[in-house]
């Protein structure tokens, strides 16, 4: 649906994105993680047509998205990091303006506005001036404008930024509902946000994307030990193969008999690893490990650190 291929972007001398590849399919909610300044906003701006890449291309439904393709922008809903609202306007006037600018006229415009007002529960404030509304409502209006006209792709830049915990839960519910039938990319710093919403997670590091394994699609290996010292086994495993890495260091605290391996990174086959472990300890059970988002992120960061050191 939306494809960024080899996208590069520089601001003055600083390279923000370097040959970034990202494909978004219908029904996907892709979480875009990364530290401040990693290029998340730039990625979304390029995907939304607000900024243009220095290299590479953006395609929407197979068509190249270039500066003169204004019509393609109607198929993208975009919520920037700072919600773009006209404070003197009422909620209804603002959403009506966005609908008209998206090329909707007459009854279809009225119904498009009515749909988002209902979806985001804005009916009570429809005639209120935006400038006098709370942050939660302002964020809702921002989400609503992104969805006016039923765009195929929804791009959300830190959509829950600055909201209180209750508003965050509400915003998540709305994003989940909004994602039906379209592709969504959203950026955030909050790992729980990603775990709660996303079908896929990518981590932006030094201008490149690293796909994170979540949802058990790239399951690791979880080994529970009946006896023997965990530390000894760990040391032994390291001694056997330095490439094998413990993914779940925090498990050592509460549960000293649990080891989690990232098979993809360990460089050994599952059977081979189990055989090696069995030589040094009594294995109680061996099963699939589903890494959570934090473990996946830690693994990706560790791999990058190794790559940089090499």
């Amino acid at each position, binding site marked *: 649906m939306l494809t960024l291929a080899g996208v590069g972007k520089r601001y003055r001398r600083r390279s923000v994105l370097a040959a970034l590849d990202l494909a978004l399919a219908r029904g996907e909610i892709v979480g875009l993680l990364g530290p401040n300044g990693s290029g998340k906003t730039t990625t979304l701006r390029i995907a939304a047509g607000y900024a243009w890449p220095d290299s590479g291309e953006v395609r929407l439904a197979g068509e190249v998205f270039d500066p003169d393709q204004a019509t393609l922008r109607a198929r993208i809903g975009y919520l*920037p990091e*700072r919600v773009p609202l006209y404070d*003197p306007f009422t909620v209804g006037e603002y959403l009506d303006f966005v609908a*008209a600018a998206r090329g909707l006229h007459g009854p279809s415009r009225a119904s498009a506005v009515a749909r988002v007002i209902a979806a985001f529960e804005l009916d009570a404030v429809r005639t209120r001036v935006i400038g006098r509304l709370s942050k939660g409502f302002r964020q809702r209006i921002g989400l609503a404008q992104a969805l006016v006209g039923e765009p195929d792709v929804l791009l959300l830049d830190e959509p829950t930024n600055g909201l209180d915990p209750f508003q965050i839960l509400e915003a998540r519910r709305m994003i989940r509902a909004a994602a039906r039938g379209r592709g969504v990319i959203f950026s955030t710093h909050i790992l729980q946000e990603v775990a709660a919403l996303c079908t896929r997670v990518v981590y932006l590091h030094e201008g490149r994307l690293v796909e994170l394994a979540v949802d058990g699609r790239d399951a690791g290996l979880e080994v529970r030990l009946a006896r023997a010292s965990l530390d000894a086994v760990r040391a032994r495993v390291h001694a056997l193969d330095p490439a094998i890495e413990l993914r779940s260091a925090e498990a050592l605290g509460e549960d000293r008999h649990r080891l989690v391996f990232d098979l993809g990174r360990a460089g050994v086959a599952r059977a081979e690893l189990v055989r090696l472990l069995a030589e040094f300890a009594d294995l109680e059970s061996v099963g699939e490990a589903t890494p959570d988002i934090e473990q996946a992120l830690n693994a990706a960061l560790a791999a990058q650190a190794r790559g940089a050191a090499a």
Partner: protein
Amino acid sequence: MRGFVTLFARELRHYFVTPIACVVIAVFWAASGFFFSFNALFVAAPDMVSAFHNMSLLLMLMMPLVTMRTLAEERSGDTLELLLTLPVGEAAIVAAKYLALLVILVLMLAGSTLAVIPLALYGTPDYGPILGGYLGVFLLGAAFAAVGLAASSCAANQVVAAVLTWALLLLMWFVDYAAALDGAGGAVRWLQHVSFSVQYLDLIRGVLTRGAVVWFGSVIAVGMVVATQVLRARRA
């Protein structure tokens, strides 16, 4: 230009949901009325040439107050990101904003037409030069608006946009003074041709020369092109 009508309607509405337009228009009417009345009662016989002269100076003072928000406010309020990701082109955004400015300009000048009533009641005015004078002042104001729009596209702050516009307008008003410098040589004629203060003298007498129309039309065109290109550059 896709989205032009929508953007124009929004822009015009924005002027009237905030007090900006009403205040500027009211002050312009009051000031131009005051100068006309003062001139008629205490200085000389009432005529529209001096009224147009005062209107021109008032426009130079007040137009930047209207134009300063056009694009600078969109930028500082983060709504420029919304506009540039909607399916509308940069040229449509600039043209819509410019047309809304012209509507404000027409409303400013419309109130001043009340001055013609006493002239008609107590004399026999020649309406041709008056109409020509209004067209001339409108052309001058339209050029000010284009300069202000271009300045607003370059600034992220409305005050900076206003000050930049005043600086540009003053420069273009007094540029012919440079002709008095030794060594101006062949540039004298050119400097006088591009000076607002030289060009407007014919306009306020109701004489629309081809040169003046071409010059002010060029200023308007350059202002709009600059604003459009600055918006395009924002995407880079």
